[in-house]
């Protein structure tokens, strides 16, 4: 290990922050770009399943909350791409990689939102899982990412609360609303558990990310935390978690849950989820249909800076 690398590792080990101008190993840079880009892509693809219900939201208050949430997601995308750019990446290139299917986004957004309760369930479960994943990232070794995460987490926790509140209303509502709520939990429970990624013995890059201070807890640890926090909430709502093997272990103080269907996870990852093609096609169409607008803005800016120089 040379002196630069030693200094880098000492900073990371001492819980210090790596800043954009600091030396860093190329693998660290590449890992972070990939992870931050994937996170940014998840934010912008994640606008689709929720955006699907904005025009149909059942009250004006719920509509306003949902619009604000989708707006937050676009904002998160913006500052995450910004964080990736501090590492030398370029937003347009990252978007091209997303559009070409060469970079991933969270598998959770490849499931459809077929009822209003799905919007509530996404807030409660998906944003809840995202918070479990992201709170440790506020202490990530890379400064710009850690700082972006502080802001993202504040907004995510608002999203999570409003989702839980919306689901509370449904769970205590009419029989049709209760059925809608239970059906949403049935469909979103397992995909939410998959959001933490493969189990530790099947997660090839985890150890390195831990040594670099990018990852603080293992996938299984975070998943367990999520289950422990969420099952009592489901009970409070009077809903049934769709896992016949779920039980509370008095000795460990943790919930024991059933086997996750990893075949499903890897299939969705590969592109075979219910909405993979639709999500990407919508994203690509928006980008292509907007090309003339971006070109016009660039042409206008070029013309006017030339005129200013001439004047």
């Amino acid at each position, binding site marked *: 290990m040379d002196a630069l690398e030693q200094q880098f590792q000492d900073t990371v080990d001492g819980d210090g922050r790596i800043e954009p101008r600091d030396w860093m190993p190329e693998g660290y840079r590449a890992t972070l770009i990939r992870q931050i880009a994937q996170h940014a892509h998840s934010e912008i693809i994640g606008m689709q399943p929720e955006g699907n219900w*904005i025009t149909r939201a059942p009250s*004006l208050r719920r509509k306003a909350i949902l619009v604000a949430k989708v707006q937050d997601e676009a904002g998160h995308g913006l500052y995450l791409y910004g964080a990736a750019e501090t590492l030398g990446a370029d937003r347009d290139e990252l978007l091209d990689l997303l559009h070409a299917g060469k970079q991933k986004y969270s598998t959770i957004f490849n499931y459809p939102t077929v009822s209003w309760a799905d919007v509530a369930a996404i807030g409660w479960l998906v944003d809840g899982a995202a918070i479990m994943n992201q709170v440790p990232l506020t202490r990530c070794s890379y400064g710009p990412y850690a700082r972006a995460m502080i802001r993202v987490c504040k907004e995510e926790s608002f999203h999570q609360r409003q989702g839980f509140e919306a689901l509370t209303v449904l769970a205590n509502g009419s029989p049709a609303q209760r059925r809608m709520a239970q059906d949403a939990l049935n469909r979103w429970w397992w995909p939410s558990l998959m959001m933490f990624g493969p189990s530790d013995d099947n997660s090839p890059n985890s150890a390195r990310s831990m040594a670099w201070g990018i990852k603080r807890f293992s996938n299984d640890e975070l998943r367990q935390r999520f289950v422990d926090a969420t099952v009592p909430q489901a009970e409070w709502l009077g809903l049934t978690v769709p896992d016949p093997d779920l039980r509370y272990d008095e000795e460990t103080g943790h919930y024991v849950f059933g086997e996750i269907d990893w075949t499903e996870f890897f299939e969705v990852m590969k592109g075979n989820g219910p909405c993979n093609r639709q999500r990407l096609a*919508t994203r690509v169409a928006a980008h292509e*249909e*907007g*090309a*003339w*607008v971006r070109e016009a*803005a660039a042409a206008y800016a070029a013309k006017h800076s030339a005129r200013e120089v001439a004047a």
Partner: protein
Amino acid sequence: MAVQDLDVAAYCLRLGDDALVLAQRLCEWAARSPQLEEDVALMNLALDLLGQSRSLLTLAGEREGAGRDEDDLAFLRDEPDFVNAQLMELDNGDFGRTMARQLLVSAWSLPLWDALVTSTDPDLAAIAGKAVKEVAYHLDHARSWVVRLGDGTEESHRRMQAGLDEVWPYSFELFESDDLLQRLVERGVAADPAALQPIWLATVSEVVAEATLSLPETDWRPAGGRRGTHTEAFGYLLAELQHLHRSHPGVSW
């Protein structure tokens, strides 16, 4: 107990429907805009308009005195009961057309809210105080896009002019007067549409000139929204807006 005032209720309903219907159209842009910054901006515009519509519909319900709240008015009225200007309900078209409409609407609503800040109805004046700041940004946003698209590339110029041509005829309805408006203007409650038109035209002409576009010339002046007559597209907009709420009568959300 609020004082019943059916004229004020009817006026707030017009303005509330304008804001609600335009917000609903802007919401259709979610996750579909030309760039991420615009996803933020368009949702911001939609959110402002939605907020305005909620305050206005709530006030309309109070002045009507029949116990209807914002959701009753938004979700449980039929097409002929909506009194928004037809301009608000037109399909978005491409981004250029959407921005053309934003320009025409914001250049009207800014002087409108500005006048309503001093409305003799204190609740309406309070709504105006907030709205005037919001629509000042909406006008800036629309202006900057209309100029950039008009004076951008050949394609964007063509599209921007086409978008403007398409929405332009519907702007005349914004300046119509009728008995209701005359009574309310006399009471100092409402803004006089005739006084708004020259301000609107000056703003729009200036932007259109800077954008190297031309003001459309037409003698076609579609109207009727204020009397509950709407375009074919409006039924679909309402169906989408209202179906879930109406499918579960009487529940909370």
